[in-house]
């Protein structure tokens, strides 16, 4: 017996982050590897849901600080590390949105435009199309927008999204289906 917990991979793919998580549990400096791996994705998630770079930075910072504080308690018991991390980000985003509603200001109507993207070389029509998609995304209900961002920006599976949102895999698939149908309607030509 080595004293280290071995990955539990029954019924699912092994967690690719587990070795780094185990290292971070005994040496906080090893958390840097996970930070570098997930900074972009956590920030992207926060950005597309909060619609503001400053708020996204704030939520991202809180997410990683909370994750660093709690990583020692992470257990490989069915949920991957990245779904655990995005669950923390999800809570931070929810807190930010609650604080925003208390201030009675809302930025959700704004269309978040990533700095430097899309590339002007792609042409005006591509930029316009991207803007239309982001506007359509902003008009979706919260749970549908969450699913779209987690699926298409962060690349999480339906099962992982279920862990993040506290729903079943089946419920996420249905949400995803409905979100895409709604987006298809919103993006239909000459609507």
């Amino acid at each position: 017996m080595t004293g280290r917990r071995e990955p539990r991979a029954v019924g699912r793919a092994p967690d690719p982050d587990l070795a780094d998580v185990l290292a971070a549990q005994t040496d906080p400096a090893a958390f840097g590897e996970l930070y570098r791996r997930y900074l972009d994705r956590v920030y992207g998630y926060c950005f597309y849901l909060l619609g503001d770079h400053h708020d996204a930075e704030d939520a991202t910072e809180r997410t990683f600080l909370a994750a660093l504080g709690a990583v020692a308690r992470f257990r490989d018991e069915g949920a991957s590390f990245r779904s655990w991390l995005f669950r923390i980000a999800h809570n931070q985003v929810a807190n930010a949105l609650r604080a925003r509603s208390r201030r009675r200001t809302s930025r959700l109507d704004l269309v978040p435009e990533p700095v430097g993207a899309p590339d002007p070389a792609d042409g005006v029509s591509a930029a316009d199309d991207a803007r239309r998609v982001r506007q359509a995304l902003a008009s979706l209900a919260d749970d549908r927008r969450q699913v779209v961002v987690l699926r298409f920006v962060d690349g999480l599976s339906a099962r992982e999204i279920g862990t993040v949102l506290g729903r079943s895999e089946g419920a996420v698939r249905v949400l995803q289906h409905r979100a895409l149908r709604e987006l298809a309607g919103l993006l239909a030509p000459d609507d």
Partner: protein
Amino acid sequence: MQQIPTVAVRLDHALDELAAGAHPALAAATAGLAGEPRVLVEVADRVRSSLPMPPVSSRFEARLGARLSGAVPSRDAVAWALRHPGRLIVTGAVGSAVGVGVTAYAVWRKGRRSTPAGRFLHR
């Protein structure tokens, strides 16, 4: 008898294919989608390409990295102050009032010293 997967399940499989780099038409065909659900795979592809990963500022990345390694003090105090502008204004007003009071007292003391009685007292 084997149950036929629902459209939501097949769409999810098509999205997995799409994420793995398959063309939308191929992803839809592989998942056994036709008609409207097939269009949804194309919409998904359009959404995916319209939501690029936003760039993280290098300054933010470096600052947070330093905080995580314990090299930089907490920014929470500043964030707290910015979230409570009313308290910040009260703090500023109290600080200003104290400053004005101290200045007035100093002027008053100096004025008293310059009178004959004051010069006598401070001799």
